[in-house]
């Protein structure tokens, strides 16, 4: 997906914020979902991410890719959201996958089940490991980019990623065995 460039002119910044919102809403929505925000809370949390982005737009370094920068906002908002105990766990049965049209219902059901298992396995990770796993393995960001965006060292990212991979693999395989 094309990523909008962000100009420095104040008037242009407001306009580019709109372009950024339009281009990256899907990205932020899915990142929050993967970071543990419940489906029912996504509207609120997406709104919160873009409000913060709007307030910090002048700090964005346009020489760097925008998505890792957005991911850092999403990670912070998701962490704060999950810190509230009532949001820490998805309530079974509330998963909504209604807006994913597919030609074959059986295939679609299998895909949805696969995605549900991934989200369930992600729930087994603590927030720090979950952030780097989602950022690198699912969103496809590089270690250095996400280290810079999250404000941690590259070694910390890879250390967390190594542990996250192990824990995610165990959790995923375990959840497959549970009917």
């Amino acid at each position, binding site marked *: 997906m094309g990523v909008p460039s962000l100009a420095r002119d104040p008037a242009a910044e407001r306009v580019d914020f709109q*372009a950024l919102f339009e281009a990256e809403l899907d990205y932020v929505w899915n990142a929050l979902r993967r970071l543990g925000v419940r489906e029912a809370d996504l509207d609120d949390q997406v709104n919160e991410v873009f*409000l913060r982005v709007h307030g910090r737009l002048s700090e964005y370094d346009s020489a760097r890719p925008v998505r890792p920068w957005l991911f850092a906002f999403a990670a912070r908002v998701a962490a*704060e959201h999950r810190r509230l105990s009532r949001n820490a766990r998805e309530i079974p049965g509330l998963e909504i996958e209604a807006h994913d049209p597919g030609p074959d219902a059986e295939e679609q059901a299998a895909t949805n089940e*696969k995605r549900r298992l991934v989200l369930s396995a992600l729930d087994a990770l603590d927030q720090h490991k979950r952030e780097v796993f989602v950022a*690198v393995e699912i969103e496809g960001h590089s270690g250095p980019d996400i280290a810079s965006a999250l404000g941690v060292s590259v070694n910390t990212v890879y250390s967390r990623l190594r542990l996250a991979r192990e824990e995610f693999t165990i959790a995923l395989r375990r959840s497959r065995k549970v009917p």
Partner: protein
Amino acid sequence: MNERDLGPLPPDVADAVAGERTRPGVDAVTRARIRTRLHATLLAGPAGGTPPAPDAPPASAAPGTMSGLRALRSLHPGLTAAVGFVVGVTTGIAAHAWLAPAVVHRSATDVTPLTPITEPPSATVAPAPVPRAVPPSDLAAPREATASPGVPSGAALAAPSLPAERALLDIAHTALAKGEATEALDALGQHAKKFPHGVYREEREALTIKALRSLGRTDEAARRAAAFTARYPNSLFRSIVEAAPGSNP
């Protein structure tokens, strides 16, 4: 350590992760709802003012409204009633009607005539929590329940043509973000043809002006911008329409 040192994920795990990567995004109605709400919240907050603090919000407040409330504190007292109402409505919508579109109330402090967005205009009232900072005298003033400029009303968001309208405007937005103004104009032209009185005609016109400016058709853009400002004096898209000549926002 780097990614190569970690090696590939096991095949079964990689397969599951690959499936997650193709998770669909936001449907048109949800996109419109989020856009509407964000516009309403930004309208309440200081767009170019103090950025929201990155620190965690107090546990006693709803996270989804924190930035808006922080923005509220820095506003001029005379605007507090209007801002409080918008933030309150936003909160009320989030709490009571997740699927309902935003409805923005205007206070007596804003007496500019409203731009008609729907035909006929809707008048939907949503519950609005009242922030304590609002003086009682301001709260006692009568309020008009209607849509904010540029924000589709509740009835408008329920229109069956909405997803098709939104899809065309999304094409235009994406094309403009990529710098493909001609493609954007194509989509906007289709919208104008199919939905001449559509819910999003105000946004369409703003994007058209932006696209024309991008293509260097500045005279045409200026003419349309003047007409736009006259017709929609309180538009949320004024930042697009009023962008400096020669800029390519």
